[in-house]
């Protein structure tokens, strides 16, 4: 009966979804079919298609990994187990959450799926927030690639220390502002409140495996569609906005940080690769601006915001955006300040 209640609830996101779907469908028709593509610059369309597909192909394994981990959590790990494992005090809990990436080197493509699943498993919001923000940054692969891109520079330290600090700060602020509220969207909460898995523990391995795979493909379809939309917009950004235009806007200390943050958000690069792109900007931007590029892009970006808004209530996502944006900006200013002194 629960599902019928969900349907009768007024759905606020639907008009946006329809408009967005229409834009997406029109632009994708333009990109997909040759007759339509002739009206537009064919090189632009070809580049757009290549970038779009390359983002998707590169992220698919990580998206599936996220969906798989989420499914395993759903089927095999109970709320009680998670509650027992979590540290009781706030600060140690946040620190543990921030360092989990060292054990699970996941990138940002799959992390929202897992965070949403953990929220359904009643993991406190502040731990979840810190976990979601820190894992794509504080992990061995990202540390290595940043060191490779910036061999003789304190960049790796700035990036990792900064993201630990910021993730914990944001997590703590979320606890202060929102407490233990439920920020999951009702529709997301209901999708998996099925009675197929956790209430039938005695059905053996095969049944559990099947339940897991069904959940995995459910996750793939719900999250994948938002991911595709985000990937399309970020490749559109790359093709439509010339970099030189962006670099010319930002020359001051504040404006360069703002520009690099906007760029990181729009490009939606994988946190494993963004250091090499940042390296290309190193001659024209300050240390603080580059650091914010590396931190902000991995915490929040265009392709992830769709998944965030799909899973969590808008209030939480907006608070998260405001906190992360302002704190990362201040951190960038602080780094620039240190650079001036030394």
């Amino acid at each position, binding site marked *: 009966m629960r*599902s019928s209640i969900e*349907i009768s609830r007024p759905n606020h996101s639907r008009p946006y*979804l329809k408009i967005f*779907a229409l834009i997406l*469908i029109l632009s*994708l028709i333009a*990109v*997909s079919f040759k007759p339509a593509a002739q009206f537009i610059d064919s*090189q*632009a369309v*070809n*580049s757009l*298609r*290549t*970038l*779009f*597909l*390359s*983002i*998707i*192909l*590169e992220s*698919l*394994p*990580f998206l*599936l990994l996220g969906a798989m981990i989420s499914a395993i959590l759903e089927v095999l790990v109970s709320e009680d187990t998670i509650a027992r494992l979590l540290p009781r005090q706030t600060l140690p809990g946040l620190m543990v959450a921030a360092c989990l990436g060292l054990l699970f080197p996941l990138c940002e493509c799959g992390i929202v799926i897992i965070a949403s699943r953990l929220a359904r498993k009643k993991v406190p919001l502040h731990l979840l927030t810190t976990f979601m923000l820190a894992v794509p940054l504080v992990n061995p692969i990202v540390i290595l690639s940043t060191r*490779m*891109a910036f061999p003789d520079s304190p960049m790796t330290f700035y990036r990792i220390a900064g993201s630990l600090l910021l993730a914990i700060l944001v997590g703590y602020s979320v606890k202060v502002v929102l407490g233990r509220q439920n920020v999951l969207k009702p*529709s997301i909460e*209901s*999708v998996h409140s*099925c009675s*197929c898995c956790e209430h039938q523990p005695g059905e053996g391995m095969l049944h559990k495996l*099947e339940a897991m*795979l*069904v959940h*995995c*493909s459910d996750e*793939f*379809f*719900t999250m*994948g*569609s938002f991911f*595709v939309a985000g990937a*399309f917009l970020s*490749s559109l950004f*790359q*093709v439509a906005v*010339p*970099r*030189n235009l962006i670099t010319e806007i930002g020359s001051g200390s504040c404006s360069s940080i703002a520009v690099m943050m906007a760029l990181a958000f729009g490009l939606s690069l*994988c946190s*494993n*690769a*963004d250091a*090499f*792109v940042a390296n*290309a900007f190193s*001659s*024209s931007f300050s240390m603080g601006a580059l650091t914010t590029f590396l931190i902000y892009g991995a915490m929040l970006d265009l392709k992830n915001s769709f998944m965030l808004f799909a899973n969590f209530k808008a209030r939480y996502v907006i608070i998260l955006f405001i906190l992360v944006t302002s704190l990362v900006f201040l951190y960038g200013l602080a780094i620039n300040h240190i650079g001036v002194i030394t």
Partner: protein
Amino acid sequence: MKSIQIIRAAILFVFGYYIIQLLSSGDISKYIHPRFLLGLQLSCGLFLILGLVQLWQVYRTGHHHHPNLKREALACAILAFPLICGIFNPTAVLGSYMIDKKDSNPARTIPVSSSPASPDGSWEPVINDNQFLAAMMILYGNPADYLNRDIEFTAFIYHQDNFPSDCFLAARFGITCCAADAQVTGLLCHFQEQAKLPQDQWVRVKGVLQVQSFMSSEVPIVEVSSLQLIEPPKNPYVY
């Protein structure tokens, strides 16, 4: 309800098929770095398994309920688009259009290479694709050290107005993860009849290294001795 299940299964199978098609034709190298191949192969297997499980669900009525049919259908439609995009179009390679949109100073944008230029550090005049990025790093690091050395490599032509006169950029895209993070690199080439060469034409360049001042830094430049027009290589990017 069942129709959604069947459409989902179909999409999962087509994802698997598309990955197999990309892997077998080798076109996958035009999208992502080879180190992601294993992940993609595993994904392909998982897609096929998920598709089978999804089909199996069709026969198990009442097992799984989908509260919002419209949303499910929309999700399927969106996920089908990358497949339509990929399967019904030839794979396109990034070219001069993307350089225009990116930073086009070749000295600034050399991606870090994973392999060294040559095992003993000596200069090899013929630069193959595996060594391309490493060679660029060395050349841009100390251009004066390689004055009057011979060089030979493959690249595509890129013209821009603010290059020195009679010069074009012999460009390559370097890739770290996927084509979305492609960075342009390459060498400026001095060639009298450069204006006759079309943008994006692939060439085999032979020449001698010189040094020239460009955008307030000393950069290597190739005095071209011979230029051969070639077909685009099977793997257009360097890693």
